[in-house]
């Protein structure tokens, strides 16, 4: 009973590597974002920012470096929100019945799917980081070997907990839905505000007050705080804004993400308990 989630995980990973097109596109797409959007935006922003003086002693980073963290977060968000869709397919094709009539604890479906979603996100994130560094994102610049390892682990921790939160949410929605179209609609609806009301592409400080509050508590922002902290450092200047993260800021962001994941897990658990699949 204890390893039920491993069975679900095993199957989902089989499917992940089996659909070659999907596998390939899911790995290529974030790199393309970074390549096209990243290079285009950074060349404009960096030109605009060229005249802004950098205070002495502050580490200034280019826009590509700044937004690479946002692309990591965006990719994780998309992958995680769509991660639950397999549950809907299983439900519609009757495959879920086999699982629900088995002695496996139903929570393990949620855990198994979440774990495979996290694995997929890790693979993507590592690819984006490697590709980002390749095209000029200054990640881990001036870090020692130990700091790089710690930085990568820190980023993966933030990616992992963030991904879990949205995978639980996705699983909970998927098990309640009837059609993939409906699910797609809801996911698209969610992605927009979560992505744009965050610090992924720009600082949130100049937002109107209401949007600013929303953005500060957005799990997306909390996650990006962590990524920037571990990839760039606790103190840097980007887009004319001086970012300073203290350890407790980062700990608080991580704690926020844990709370988010806990809430969405509860939601998924509740939806699964209610689910009737025949």
């Amino acid at each position, binding site marked *: 009973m204890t390893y039920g989630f491993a069975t679900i995980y095993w199957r989902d990973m089989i499917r992940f590597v089996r659909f070659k097109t999907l596998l390939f596109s899911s790995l290529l797409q974030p790199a393309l974002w970074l390549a096209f959007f990243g290079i285009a935006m950074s060349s404009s922003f960096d030109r605009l920012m060229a005249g802004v003086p950098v205070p002495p002693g502050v580490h200034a980073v280019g826009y590509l470096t700044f937004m690479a963290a946002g692309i990591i977060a965006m990719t994780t968000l998309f992958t995680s929100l769509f991660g639950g869709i397999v549950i809907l397919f299983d439900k519609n094709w009757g495959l879920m019945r086999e699982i629900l*009539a088995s002695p496996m604890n139903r929570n393990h479906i949620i855990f198994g799917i979440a774990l495979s979603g996290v694995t997929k996100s890790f693979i993507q994130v590592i690819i984006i980081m490697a590709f980002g560094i390749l095209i000029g994102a200054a990640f881990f610049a001036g870090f020692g070997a130990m700091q790089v390892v710690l930085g990568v682990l820190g980023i993966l921790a933030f990616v992992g907990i963030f991904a879990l939160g949205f995978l639980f949410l996705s699983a909970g929605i998927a098990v309640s839905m009837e059609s993939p179209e409906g699910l797609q609609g809801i996911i698209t609806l969610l992605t927009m505000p979560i992505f744009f009301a965050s610090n992924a592409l720009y600082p949130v400080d100049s937002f109107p007050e209401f949007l600013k509050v929303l953005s500060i508590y957005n799990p997306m922002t909390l996650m990006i705080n962590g990524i920037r902290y571990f990839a760039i450092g606790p103190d840097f200047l980007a887009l004319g804004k001086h970012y300073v993260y203290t350890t407790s800021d980062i700990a608080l962001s991580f704690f926020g993400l844990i709370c988010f994941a806990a809430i969405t897990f509860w939601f998924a658990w509740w939806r699964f308990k209610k689910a009737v699949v025949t």
Partner: protein
Amino acid sequence: MAGIPAPGGHPGIEVKNLEHSYGDFKAVDGISFSVKEGEIFSFLGPNGAGKSTAINILITLLSLQKGEASVAGFDVTKDPQKVRESIGVVFQDITLDRDMTVWEILEFHGRLYNMSREERKKRIDELLRLVQLEAKKDERTKNLSGGMKRRLEIARGLMTRPKVLFLDEPTLGLDPQTRMRMWDYIKGVNNEGTTIFLTTHYMDEADRLSDRISIIDHGKIIITGTSYGLKNTLGQDLIYLETSDNEAAIRILQGLYSVRDIKSKTKGFVLMVNEDGTKVLPAIIDALRDRRIELSTINLKKPSMDDVFVFYTGKELRDEPEGKTGYLTLRPGGH
């Protein structure tokens, strides 16, 4: 502790006054039955009779609305987890992941049920041989024919050795040879101690496989008994007659000692007789000749499950429109 069977619960299946509605439609309308441990028990009925709904409640996929049900001694409402640990299921429609291989399907199932690695390997090899899919082991299920898919599903249902195995229309769409092999295997599983509950709309399947049969229609159990017992309710033999004056003939034959019941049909009528029909027939012929009633057709046969079904539900089980083949049909050559 949750693991202890409820007092009064027994290791088979116990159902009391079970009711289930979808909106206004009563799919299961107050059924009660009991399946003994080690028994093969069938629900025989047409599509839409409520068989699958009843199964879905027993395997805990549908929550119980009204009545009581226990499986393997565990209450389906109070102890669904224990029920799920005690059962195996073969579903009615194909429920295979198109993109998994035959081996992966079975392996996944074995893992779901916590079978050990050695046990899984042994069982998978044994079952692939049984359903003749050894050569297709690494084929994705989408490339299998319909019959192969069904065989794989049955193999999957038999992976575990549950206390109670539910088979929802297990041999739907299989060729006669494979069906008979399946029956043998199902009997084998049963001999090893698994209680089997199956639904079917194949008469011969219910007849050859089950210890007891419930005929179910419109969500109600119409009659329950052994195959022999059910057929016996129609008498020893069925004699179909067409005469020059059916009404008069029926009046005369009603008086015969060995005639249990008479059913009118479009062109003739059927006698259910308590004795060997070949012995009764001369007396019948004599009685009709005495009254100058002429016989145009005589047919004699043993009651089949078809006859039992038609007698109790008033309709044919096959998908033919009602009334087309009539009441208590007798086919030459029997069926």
